[in-house]
C-alpha cells in the first residue's frame, strides 16, 4: 500500500451554528487521483480551504508529508508543495495572461525582492513561461489582460496557474465548472496525462469525469466523509447510493 501524502483526521469547522466540516477524516496516497464528491453544500470547498490554508480548522489535524500543517499560513503550505485551483475563478484580472503565469512561476521560490530588472528577465523563466502558455493554449492571448479572456479561457488559466508550479499535491476545486463539453474533454486529457506524476485531489460534480479519472473516491455529506473506496466500491455502496448518487437517478 502506497504511503499517505496527506492525512486528515477528525477535522471540524463551523460557521456559526453550521457544522461545515464534521469529524472529517481523509487520506490521500502518493501518486493517486483522489476524487472528492458530495451534494451541493456538502462542505467540499470548505475542506479544500482548510487544506490550502485559506481557512484554519477549529479542531483536528492536517498532516502533509509527515508534517503537521493544520495551522500553517497559506503561503507556507504553497511552498511545501500544495497548489490549488479555485471553484470561483481567482485569477489576477488586471494582469496580463503572461504575467499571471509568470507570477505563478516566480512566487513559489521567494527571493523576489528584485526592484529594477524586468520580471521577464528573471533567470530560467522564459522557457518555462513559453511552455506554460503553449500547454494551456493561451499563447495568442499572452499580452491581453486576464479580465478580457472568455470564461473558458479564464478557467484554463485558473487551473494552469495551479499546475505550472509543479506541486506535490494538486487540489482542483471543480475545475470543469462552466467549461462546456469540449473544454471538459481537453482538461480531462490534461489531468490524465498528469496521473502518476503528481498527486491530485479532485473535487468534481461531473460523475463521468470522476469515475473515469479517479483511483479512489471519498464521498462527503454534511461535512462528514461517509465512504471512501475505489470507483467500483463507491458505485456499489448502499449508503452512498442512498445519500447521494440516488438523488441523481
Amino acid at each position, binding site marked *: 500500500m502506497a504511503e499517505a501524502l496527506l492525512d486528515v483526521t477528525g477535522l471540524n469547522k463551523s460557521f456559526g451554528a453550521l457544522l461545515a466540516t464534521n469529524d472529517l477524516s481523509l487520506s490521500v496516497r502518493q501518486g493517486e487521483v483522489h476524487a472528492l464528491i458530495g451534494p451541493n453544500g456538502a462542505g467540499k470547498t470548505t475542506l479544500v480551504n482548510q487544506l490550502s490554508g485559506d481557512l484554519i480548522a477549529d479542531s483536528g489535524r492536517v498532516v502533509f508529508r509527515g508534517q503537521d500543517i493544520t495551522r500553517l499560513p497559506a*503561503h507556507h503550505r504553497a511552498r511545501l508543495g500544495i497548489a490549488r485551483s479555485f471553484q470561483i475563478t481567482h485569477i489576477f*484580472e488586471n494582469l496580463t495572461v503572461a504575467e499571471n503565469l509568470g507570477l*505563478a512561476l516566480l512566487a513559489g521560490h521567494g527571493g523576489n525582492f528584485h526592484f529594477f*530588472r524586468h*520580471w521577464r528577465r528573471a533567470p530560467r523563466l522564459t522557457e518555462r513561461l513559453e511552455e506554460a502558455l503553449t500547454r494551456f493554449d493561451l499563447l495568442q492571448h499572452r499580452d491581453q489582460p486576464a479580465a478580457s479572456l472568455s470564461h473558458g479561457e479564464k478557467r484554463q488559466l485558473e487551473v494552469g496557474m495551479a499546475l505550472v508550479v509543479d506541486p506535490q499535491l494538486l487540489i482542483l476545486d471543480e475545475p470543469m465548472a462552466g467549461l462546456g463539453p469540449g473544454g471538459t474533454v481537453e482538461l480531462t486529457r490534461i489531468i490524465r496525462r498528469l496521473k502518476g506524476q503528481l498527486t491530485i485531489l479532485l473535487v468534481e460534480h461531473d460523475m463521468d469525469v470522476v469515475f473515469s479519472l479517479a483511483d479512489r473516491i471519498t464521498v462527503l455529506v454534511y461535512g462528514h466523509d461517509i465512504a471512501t473506496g475505489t470507483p467500483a466500491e463507491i458505485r456499489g455502496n448502499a449508503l452512498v447510493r442512498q445519500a447521494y448518487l440516488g438523488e441523481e437517478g
Partner: protein
Amino acid sequence: MTRKQLFLLLAAVLLSLLPAAAHLFGNPYLLSLASRILIYGLAAASLDLLLGYGAMISLGHAAYVGIGAYAAGILHLHLGAPGLAPALALVADSEVSGLVILPLAVLAASLAALVIGALCLRTTGMHFIMITLAFAQMLYYFFISLEAYGGDDGLSLLGRSKLPLVNLDNDTHFYYFCLFCLIAFLLLASRLVHSRFGLILRGTGDNERRARGLGVNTGRYRLALFTIAGGSAGLAGALLANHSEFVSPGLLNWTLSGELMVMVLLGGIGTLFGPVFGAAVYLLLEEGLNMYTEHWMAYMGPLLVLAVLFARNGLLPLLISGRKRHG
C-alpha cells in the same frame, strides 16, 4: 502607446522650458508655483504606488511628507547652529548639507512608514483606511506638541540646503532640482512596477488570496512597498520644506492626505505619471478658483463627487487615449 509617449515628451519639453517662460513674463511666482506642482506631483505619484499598484488605500500619506519636511527642518536647524557635534559641523561647513539632510529625511520617513506600516498591515479594507488616517493624526498631534521645534507655530529654516553643483537658493536651480528628483522617481518607479517585486505586488493587490495560494508572503511585499512609498513622500516633504523654508504641523494634517488622493484620482490611478498631471490640475484649479472666490472648496467638493461618480479613470487616461483602445 505612441500617444502617451508624445504626451510625456511634450510635458517634458514644456517643463524644462518653464523657467525661461517665467523670466520672459517676469513672473517669479509662476516658477515657485511650478516647483510646488512638481513636489506635490512627486508626493502624489508615491501615493499612487500604494493606491494603484498595491491596492493599499492609505489615508495618511501626508504623515510621511510631514516627517520628511520636519526631518529636513530639524536637521537644517542643527546643522546651522554653531558649535554642534563636530562631525555634523564639518558637513554643514562644507556647503553640502543637502547631501546629509535629504537622505536622512528620506530615511526618517521610510522608518516611520516601516513601523506604522507593520502595524497597519495587520488589517485590510476599511480598517486599513481608518488606521492609516489615525496614525497620521497621531503624528500631527505629536508635532503640535513638539514645543522645542515650534509646536503649533512651525519651524522656519532660514535658507535652503546646500548641494554641490546646484544652488538651491536660486529659484531656477531649485526648480530644476525638483524636476530632476521627480523624473528620477518616475523612472525608478516605472521600473519598479514591472520588476519581479512589482509583478508580485500587483498580483497581491489584485487578488491577495490567489497570491498567497501561490506561495507569496504578501505582508512582506506590502510592507516593503509601504516603506518605499513613505520614503518617497519623505523626499517630497524635504523638498517642500526647502521650497517654503518653513515647516508646520499643517503638513501632516489629514486634509493633505485627502488632497494627494484627489490628485491621484484626477490624474488616473495606477499610471504614475498621471498623478503629477493631477497635482498640476488640482493646484492650478486651486489658484484659479482662489482668484475668483475665497470659497473655492465649495466648488471643489461637488466637482470631486462628480468626478468620482462619472469619470472613474481620471483625466489623463481620458485625454491621452482619446477613443477606446484599438478603436
